């Protein structure tokens, strides 16, 4: 086995390159220190107990500055490079395919917008950016795919996201990286990267009757959301809300992303849309599990893209 895990995402290359930069700098520094110490240790070894006392050298400010500034310049490169890559890795492109993941002691539940579901498996095509939306049902987990050089903690109470674009078809490890209890080391699975054609076939073979947004629409009726948000307008209309800025009663503006929608369902009064009353919508915290919640969110997202619905509500 080599020193690198397989490179299977567009970013893996970049992370490896930065890693190699770090290894080279570190190796040079380490060698430098080792060699210099070795030379000094040999050259200036005490040959007999009566050797004369060496002359004291109290230091040199130029030297101190040199060995402070030069390493720091290399570190600035590490900082800039690492930060750039980090921001890129956590800023999903707009055209990314969505995949939704729920972590639960001790399994990963994956949902695709088309309604396909898997446990401890993730299937993705090559050549398309994939955006993961991560939620946790219980404790903190971490969705880690070494071949993509990416992970992110899955923090209960919030949505965390990251994105990647797979490059090499194959099967890769999927690990939970944040300790989550007894079977933490069994909370593992596989990521299968396929070429786009096989991926379409795979999606078709696993297709269920209802897509995520269909399921969400059912929940929308079941929980009575439809009454206020569509029928009698006591709640803000939800068409064309997703990914748009929303004016709040406290004067602030928020972007209605997935996290906002999640919060708006679970704790509606934490941020109230301007023009609407607080304490009208019931609190759904503890009433709805993460998978269903994702379906609702996906449904609301779908409203933003459907022209028919947006006509129904000019906003």
């Amino acid at each position: 086995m080599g020193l690198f895990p397989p490179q299977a995402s567009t970013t893996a290359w970049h992370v490896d390159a930065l890693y190699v930069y770090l290894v080279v700098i570190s190796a040079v520094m380490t060698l430098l220190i080792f060699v210099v110490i070795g030379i000094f240790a040999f050259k200036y070894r005490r040959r007999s107990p009566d050797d004369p006392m060496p002359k004291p050298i109290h230091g040199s400010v130029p030297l101190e500055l040199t060995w402070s500034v030069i390493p720091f310049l290399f570190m600035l490169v590490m900082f800039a490079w690492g930060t750039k890559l980090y921001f890129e890795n956590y800023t999903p492109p707009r055209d990314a395919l969505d995949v939704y993941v729920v972590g639960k002691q001790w399994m990963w539940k994956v949902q695709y917008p088309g309604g396909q579901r898997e446990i401890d498996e993730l299937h993705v095509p090559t050549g398309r950016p994939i955006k993961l939306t991560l939620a946790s049902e219980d404790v903190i987990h971490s969705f880690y795919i070494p071949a993509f050089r990416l992970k992110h903690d899955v923090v209960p109470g919030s949505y965390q996201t990251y994105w990647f674009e797979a490059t090499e078809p194959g099967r890769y490890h999927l690990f939970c990286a944040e300790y989550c209890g007894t079977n933490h080391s069994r909370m593992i699975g596989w990521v299968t990267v396929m070429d786009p054609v096989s991926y379409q076939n795979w999606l078709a073979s696993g297709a269920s009757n209802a897509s995520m947004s269909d399921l969400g629409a059912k929940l929308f009726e079941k929980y009575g959301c439809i009454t206020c948000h569509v029928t009698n307008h006591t709640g803000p209309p939800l068409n064309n809300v997703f990914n748009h800025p929303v004016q709040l009663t406290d004067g602030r503006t928020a972007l209605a992303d997935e996290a906002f929608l999640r919060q708006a369902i679970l704790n509606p009064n934490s941020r109230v849309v301007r023009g609407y009353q607080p304490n009208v919508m019931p609190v759904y915290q503890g009433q709805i599990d993460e998978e269903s919640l994702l379906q609702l969110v996906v449904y609301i997202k779908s409203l933003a893209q459907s022209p028919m619905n947006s006509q129904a509500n000019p906003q």
Partner: protein
Amino acid sequence: MTLAAHAEPNLKHHFDDSAQQLDSSTLGMWVFLLTEIMFFGGMFGAYTVYRNLYPEAFASASRFMNVVMGGTNTAVLIFSSLTMALAVRSAQLGRKKQLIFFLSSTLFLGCVFLTIKYFEYHEKWVDHHIPGPGFRFDEPQYFHQAQILFFLYFAMTGMHAMHMIVGAGLLTTLIVMAAHDRFSAKWYTPVELIGLYWHFVDIVWIFLFPLLYLIGRTHT
């Protein structure tokens, strides 16, 4: 290090003179108060974060803080700080009776504070505002957030009250020591140090009071 220096009765063997000993004790107390700042600082940090996350809920929950009791307690504690400062002054002047009077007043005021605190806690108990399984809140949408505020309220005021109880114990010791003529105008370090501690506990309350009782009161 002279023999004369060691002849002083309250001088510990490893110090050179009483000046060094007093300096060390005072600095030690200040360093201790430094740790106390950070100890409460952790809770102030948590408070700041949650207040920032849930301003509405915190405003709603602070309706249930009893400003009359809290305000009275603030005044009581400030008054006790005054008597403590006067106690230190009496010690400086070597006035034993005055010292005992002011220490006792401080202790009494401390007990008044704790008594009022008890009634306040009791009120919270009656209203089911103790965080945990029995917690109730009249605005269900703020139930959880309000519970966090009450959690912080009890953690912060509870820790503060614990410091008060320790302080009361220390004051009692001082009174006994003073009654036994242990202090003089030349040596009254314990009075001085426990004074610092008492004032610190006062300062913590000075910050707790607005944060827990006042902020967000005007919110409707």
